[in-house]
Structures are given as structure tokens and as C-alpha cells.
């Protein structure tokens, strides 16, 4: 008997008992649907976080001054001696694999005025290499160059949100805005970068770091202070090794003895990503376990009903054997029925799960992402359940003695 014949026969049999088939496969439907929903939400969230992290810049290290340790009393974050332009140069020129570096010195609460419009935003003093370091292309106009960055030029490059809020569609280039009462000329607008960690990255104005030092930030720990040091590592180099080299250079410059802790912190976004991946792996395992349990429960339901079905159809099986069905034909027929039942359940569950996930995405604005891998695995898993749990009943059917089966009342 051909596979097509098996499928036709199975469809007829399943249709004869529509309600029962539906109830039987409900376990599979619910199992697959719940896995699709959960994995849709889970991978949607982790995909969003991954996108955010990579928008922050990969192959990027951020170095902050850490806590000072004075006579056993540990100061707070940033209480250690500040990083300076000299540190930056030492790192950029002294460590192989550093492609670009920029200081970053910020004022998180600067008020910006243009005519009668005003906006409170974050103003960050940065070096000329920031474009490279943060992989942040300019949308219009230009960045300031290295000389401007060092000379205290009153230039500003606007983030997309600031440009929108202050200029409402007008061309900002060449306009003078006032930041904390100092006039700055707008020379560029950044491309949009989106949200990261719940913060709008586009709500920012970049100014030369020297200007930030003199105009926007209060008391300084050093005349050439940089708040934090951003480093872009050449992707051909090993990030961890470059990080270790930077650590060595900074320990040396800051005269930290061999048995003392660092008084600076190097943060690595790849580590974020790693932690995140670890978390989503755990979540994935949890999902797989849930899926496995619900599929096993569903499979037992299938096996139960298939056994009932084999008993009910004993005479039919006897007849089929009498007119020439081999044991393998009967096995194939019942196995096909079980697999089809599970596959139909899996597909309905897939649809249901996708629908619920889309609904949640619509109602709560959650990012939902249903990966094609999950879809394939769900279908394959349902078919496998059909084979595994359909085998025993099908085997029983194929082993019936035709004489007894024909006589069965």
C-alpha cells in the first residue's frame, strides 16, 4: 500500500471521529501552542536585548575609574583618580589591537535652548574618534575633527531625538543653540540608534571633550580629565588579550602594586552578550523540558485512543487482512493515523501559538519572534510523538490473527 493510500485511509478514519480526533490531539495542540508562545516571547526579548547590545557597539571596551581604597576605607564608584587624556594616548598608542579610542565626559542634565524651544538632555564631550569607536555614522553634516575636539570649539552634533524635539523638522545645520547658556553651533546630526537598556540613545548632544571640560562639567579631578575611556578593538585581535594589555598599561600608569586590586573597571559588552546567551540557554532548556512533558502527556493520550481505535476496528482489520493486507500494511495504516493526528495537532498548535503570541505582541507591545527552527522542531517533535506512541497500538493491530479478528464482536 502506498503512502498516499495510507494518508487517504487515515484521513477517512480521523474524519469519521472528528470530535474524538480533536480531543485526542488537544494535548499536542496545547503543548505545541504553549511552547510557541513562550519561545516567541522569550526569543523576542533576547533578540531585542542582543540588538541593543550590538547597537552599543561590539568589540568595544569601556573603562571607568573605580573605587579608591584609602587606608582600608573604600570610596564609592568613581572615587579613584580620574582617567586622563594621557591615559587615553597611552592605551591607544601603547596597546596593539586598539583601533580607536575616545574619552567621554558627560553632563546628564544640560538644558538646551533654541529660540523659545527648550529641551533637557545629556551632553557628552567626546573625542574625534567617537564615530569609529561607537560605530555611529552621521546622518547629516559632520563630526568635529581632532583639532576641534582638543581646542574647545563650541560645536555640537545632535542626536536624532534632540534634533526632532528642538527643530521639529527644520534644518538644524549651522544654527546656534544654547547649552547651559553657552552658544554652540550645530554642525551635524547623528543617525538614529534606538533604545538600549530602557534609555533613548538618540537623546544626546555630542560636543568636543575639551569644550565639555571647560563649559559643561563642574569641578574636575584633573585638567585633562576624561570621564570614561571608550576603546574600539580591532576585530582581528582577541578581545580578552587586548583587554589584559590595557589593564597592564593602566595598572602601570596608575602605579598599582602587584598585590593590589585595580582602581579602574573595564567593561566588555561581549561579556554582557555572553551572560545573556547563558540566560537564554537556561530559558531554552526550561522550555524544552516543558515541551517534552506536554508532548509526552499528549502522546499518552494518542496511544490510549489509538488502542481503543484498534479494538473497535478489530473486524475491519480482520477484513483488510482477509482481502490481502500484510501485517506491514496494517502497521503502516495505524502509524500513519497516529502521526497524522499528531501532525495536525502540531500544526493547529503552531497556528494557535502564533496567534496568541501575535495577540500578546499587539496588546502589550512585547517583541515576539518565532524562529523557523522552533517551528521545524515543533513539527518534527509532533511527528516523532506520533511514531513513538502510535507504534504500540499499530503493532498490536498488525499482529492480530485474521481469523479471530473477523470473528470479533
Amino acid at each position, binding site marked *: 500500500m502506498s503512502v498516499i493510500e495510507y494518508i487517504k485511509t487515515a484521513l477517512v478514519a480521523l474524519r469519521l471521529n472528528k470530535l474524538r480526533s480533536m480531543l485526542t490531539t488537544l494535548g499536542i495542540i496545547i503543548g505545541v501552542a504553549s511552547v510557541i508562545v513562550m519561545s516567541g516571547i522569550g526569543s523576542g526579548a533576547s533578540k531585542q536585548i542582543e540588538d541593543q547590545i550590538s547597537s552599543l557597539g561590539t568589540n568595544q571596551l569601556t573603562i571607568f575609574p573605580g573605587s579608591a581604597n584609602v587606608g582600608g576605607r573604600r570610596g564609592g564608584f568613581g572615587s579613584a583618580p580620574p582617567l586622563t587624556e594621557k591615559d587615553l594616548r597611552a592605551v591607544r598608542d601603547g596597546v596593539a589591537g586598539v583601533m580607536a579610542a575616545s574619552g567621554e565626559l558627560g553632563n546628564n542634565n544640560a538644558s538646551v535652548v533654541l529660540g523659545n524651544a527648550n529641551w533637557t538632555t545629556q551632553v557628552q564631550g567626546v573625542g574625534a574618534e567617537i564615530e569609529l569607536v561607537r560605530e555611529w555614522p552621521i546622518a547629516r553634516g559632520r563630526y568635529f575633527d581632532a583639532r576641534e575636539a582638543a581646542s574647545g570649539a563650541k560645536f555640537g552634533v545632535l542626536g536624532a531625538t534632540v534634533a526632532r524635539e528642538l527643530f521639529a523638522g527644520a534644518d538644524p545645520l549651522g544654527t546656534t543653540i544654547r547649552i547651559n547658556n553657552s552658544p554652540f553651533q550645530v554642525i551635524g546630526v547623528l543617525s538614529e540608534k534606538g533604545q538600549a537598556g530602557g534609555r533613548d540613545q538618540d537623546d544626546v548632544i555630542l560636543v568636543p571633550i575639551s569644550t565639555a571640560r571647560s563649559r559643561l562639567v563642574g569641578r574636575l579631578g584633573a585638567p585633562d580629565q576624561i570621564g570614561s575611556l571608550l576603546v574600539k578593538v580591532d576585530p582581528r585581535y582577541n578581545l580578552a588579550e587586548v583587554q589584559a594589555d590595557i589593564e597592564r598599561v593602566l595598572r602601570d600608569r596608575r602605579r598599582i602594586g602587584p598585590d593590589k586590586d585595580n582602581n579602574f573597571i573595564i567593561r566588555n559588552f561581549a561579556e554582557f552578550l555572553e551572560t545573556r546567551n547563558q540566560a537564554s540557554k537556561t530559558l531554552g532548556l526550561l522550555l524544552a523540558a516543558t515541551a517534552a512533558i506536554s508532548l509526552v502527556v499528549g502522546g499518552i493520550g494518542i496511544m490510549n485512543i489509538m488502542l481503543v481505535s484498534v479494538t473497535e476496528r478489530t*473486524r*475491519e482489520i480482520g*477484513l483488510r487482512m*482477509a482481502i*490481502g493486507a*500484510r501485517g506491514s500494511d496494517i502497521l503502516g495504516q495505524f502509524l500513519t493515523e497516529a502521526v497524522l493526528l499528531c501532525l495536525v495537532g502540531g500544526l493547529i498548535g503552531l497556528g494557535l501559538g502564533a496567534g496568541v503570541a501575535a495577540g500578546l505582541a499587539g496588546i502589550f507591545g512585547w517583541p515576539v519572534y518565532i524562529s523557523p527552527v522552533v517551528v521545524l522542531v515543533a513539527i518534527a517533535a509532533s511527528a516523532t510523538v506520533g511514531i513513538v506512541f502510535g507504534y504500540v497500538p499499530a503493532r498490536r493491530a498488525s499482529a492480530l490473527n485474521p*481469523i479471530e479478528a473477523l470473528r470479533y464482536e
Partner: protein
Amino acid sequence: MDGGAAQAPVVSARNLTKTYQLGEVAVHALRDVSFDIHRGEFVAIMGPSGSGKSTLMNLIGALDTPTTGALAINGADIATLDKDQLADLRNRTLGFVFQQFNLLARTSALDNVKLPLAYSRDPARQARGSELAAQRLTEVGLADRMDHVPSQLSGGQQQRVAIARALVNSPSLILADEPTGALDTQTSGEIMALFERLTESGMTVILVTHEPDVAAHARRLLRVRDGRIVEDRAVAGRPV
């Protein structure tokens, strides 16, 4: 029997025995049974219940194999065949008709008749399934009932569908087990007339029954008692 001498018999039984082991007790269902049945014969097998006639039927139907002795159907000794080969033999060579019709419920007459073709190892026959089935249904007088499901058919019509199903693979032998047991007298007569017509056109029919009226339609009678053939004769008034 003489008429078929030129041809090998459709069924040839030699010293057949069948013994069932029921716990400690050995039940001798058949003891040393020998006979030949030739093409075109219409044979009734009669006997009280427990006589061994069902066992004989199961053996001729290739549903079971003998304990000792040889049983050749169309020249093939069933004792030497494995389960799959027996299934193929049943599919190709035999057509079964049952007392309870055994049609698939909620399945059209045409699809019921096509059923044996699904198990045919001959793709050419499979491809012509609907045509062959329609032809057989027309032969049994149900050309206008092909799309009806069993519940829309009378008992006699259902049994005719079953006969069409038995015929669809052009078998050498039709085995009918109490085919009129569930039918009224008039319908029984119609069914028996159909079998008579089939044998006249060369089909071999073996009928198991305990009703003498039904057996009277056959041309040869095998009477079985206590596992032996106690009578093998031409039916009175009818040429063998």
C-alpha cells in the same frame, strides 16, 4: 471433476490435519481430509457446528496453515508460504464473502469494492481501481448505487457489494461463509442465483452453510463431521 481433468485443481487437499492445543487437550479439528475442487465448481460445505467446517474454510482461505498434509491453492502449497506470501495469495487468488458483509461503514460502495486493490502488488490494476470496481458493481446489478454508503443499502444490496469486492481482483476462487445467514429467504435466493451465474461463467465458488435450502443451489456437497469428510456427492437433480 472429470470435466476439469485437463487443468490443475483450484484447491487440492491431501491428508490434511489440523490440531489445536487447548491447554492440555489436543483438539483434532480436521483428521486426514483429502479432496480436489476444480475450476467452475460450486461446492457447498455442510456440517454441524464443531464439525471442522470453519477450520477447513480458514485453511482454504489461506488464513491458517495445516498441522500436517498439503493444501495447494492454484498450485501453491500454503504450508510453504510465510505470512506476507499468504496475504498476497489471498489478495490475488481469493475473494471472501461474509455473513455480516463486513463493509466499511460510511464508505461508498465503490470505495468498498476498490479496497482489495489497495493491497494489490500490481500497480497497473491499482491505477484502474475505479474502473474495475465500477465494472464489478455493474455485474452485480448495482450500477446505480455506487455512491451509496452501506447504511443506505438493503442487506441484499450490501451483500452484492461484498460479492463485487470479492470479484474485483479477478480471483480464482470465491469463499462464502454463510453468505445468506443475515438475509431473508427471497433475498437469499437472489444472492444464490448470483453465485450460480458466476459459476456458470467459470468462477469457482465454495460455500459454507448449515441450511440445506442454500446448499441445494450448489452442485456438489461436502459434508463434514468430526473432522472428516463423511459425504462427497453431486447435489440431487443438478449436474456436477
